[in-house]
């Protein structure tokens, strides 16, 4: 069993678990914002999914092919991240006026990038099952990247929430783009790019809860 070849996946497991442990210890208390608990759930989902992947690597020596339940971890994580931005922040930060339309249109740029990346994945020699799985995954990546970008560039007109939470939105946007890179690198069998992507994702997941917490505390001051 060659542990070194599994190192990127193990690092991702360590990063996501560290992020979840921090979030679970800090955010599930009385008086803590629901938004932070959502971020904790996002980290928890991806950590558990990655644990399954690592267990498969240790016991079978290879990544599961096609659909596997580890993908549910990433899906669950992005459902939570999307829900946090759309359900919690969008209502507070975007007054939905015509003057801000140009920011909403600009926010489509990462979404278009994700969609183009999916086209690239679709055209590769992969099974129909994989194309469907990646379609669902990339749809969530696209939606999350739209709202993260929007909350990053939208002027803070309402009550300061967007300004204080910008580092979090920047982190989620970068995380999404590197997750896209990780999938792309897996499909094209580019180990170096996959390793870089997983290392960056691990670092972001490890610090995501802390960044979100700093933003929320700043808003409450």
């Amino acid at each position: 069993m060659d542990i070194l070849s599994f190192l990127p996946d193990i690092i991702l497991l360590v990063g996501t678990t560290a992020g979840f442990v921090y979030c679970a210890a800090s955010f599930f208390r009385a008086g803590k914002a629901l938004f932070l608990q959502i971020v904790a759930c996002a980290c928890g989902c991806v950590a558990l999914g990655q644990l399954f992947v690592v267990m498969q690597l240790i016991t079978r020596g290879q990544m599961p092919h096609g659909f596997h339940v580890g993908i549910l971890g990433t899906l669950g994580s992005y459902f939570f991240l999307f829900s946090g931005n759309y359900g919690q922040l969008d209502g507070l930060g975007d007054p939905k006026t015509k003057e801000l339309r140009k920011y909403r249109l600009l926010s489509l740029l990462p979404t278009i990038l994700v969609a183009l990346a999916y086209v690239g994945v679709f055209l590769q020699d992969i099974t129909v099952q994989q194309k469907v799985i990646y379609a669902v995954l990339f749809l969530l990546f696209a939606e999350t990247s739209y709202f993260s970008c929007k909350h990053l560039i939208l002027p803070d007109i309402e009550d300061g929430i967007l300004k204080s939470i910008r580092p979090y939105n920047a982190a989620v946007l970068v995380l999404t783009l590197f997750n896209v890179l990780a999938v792309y690198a897996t499909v094209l069998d580019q180990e170096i790019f996959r390793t870089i992507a997983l290392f960056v994702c691990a670092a972001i997941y490890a610090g995501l809860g802390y960044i979100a917490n700093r933003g929320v505390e700043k808003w409450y001051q």
Partner: protein
Amino acid sequence: MVSIMYVLFICIAAPLLLLLLLIDKKSRKTVGFVIIGMCVCLFVSEINSILLAMTGGDHYYTTTTITPITEELLKALPVIYFAFVFSSERQTLLTVSMSLGIGFALLENSYILVNSLDQIDYIWALARGFGSGLMHGLCTAAVGYGISFVRVRRKLFYTGTFGLLSVAIIYHAIYNTLVQSSYKYVGVLLPIITYIPILIVLQKQQARLRKAALEVSSAVTEEAEEDTVVEKSTE
């Protein structure tokens, strides 16, 4: 041709059904959900047979990917129904969902026992009882307990339910992966290692709630006594 699964179901469920008629309302919920868990197991066994055939008999892929999804989804349905129609109170949901999971494991273990008579020993029994039995109970209990939180938060309901199901499915899949590998004893210990801290936290929560209830009750009694003294002195 007699199906051993249905024979086992009748042998175990029949006396439990008769018991339902004699016990109090609270206990009836627990025993009732054990029977529902067994019904779910029966239904899932039929579905898993079809799915195993569809995957070309790939037992490993079916047990690490397909069956965790079908089993956890179908176990969650009665719990979600109960939460919406009857009660979303946390302790009640925890009880009924754990009961359902245990009932599922009861029939599953019985079926596997009957089909593996040449392999059984006390170690096997302990592994199935404390491993698989507890795992099924914990996965369903996690969904039930979590539903009590997400049920009251409308914006979180869909993502929260998906997240809970994902956690249960992935945990189940990790258990199945480990018990089919050379790390099977790690797999068997996994539910026990998960159960003990959860039990400690829940016991502490319940002790805190009991203490708070006692303090409130003492305060009310003291006030009532003071009122009585004031009334008597007025007289």
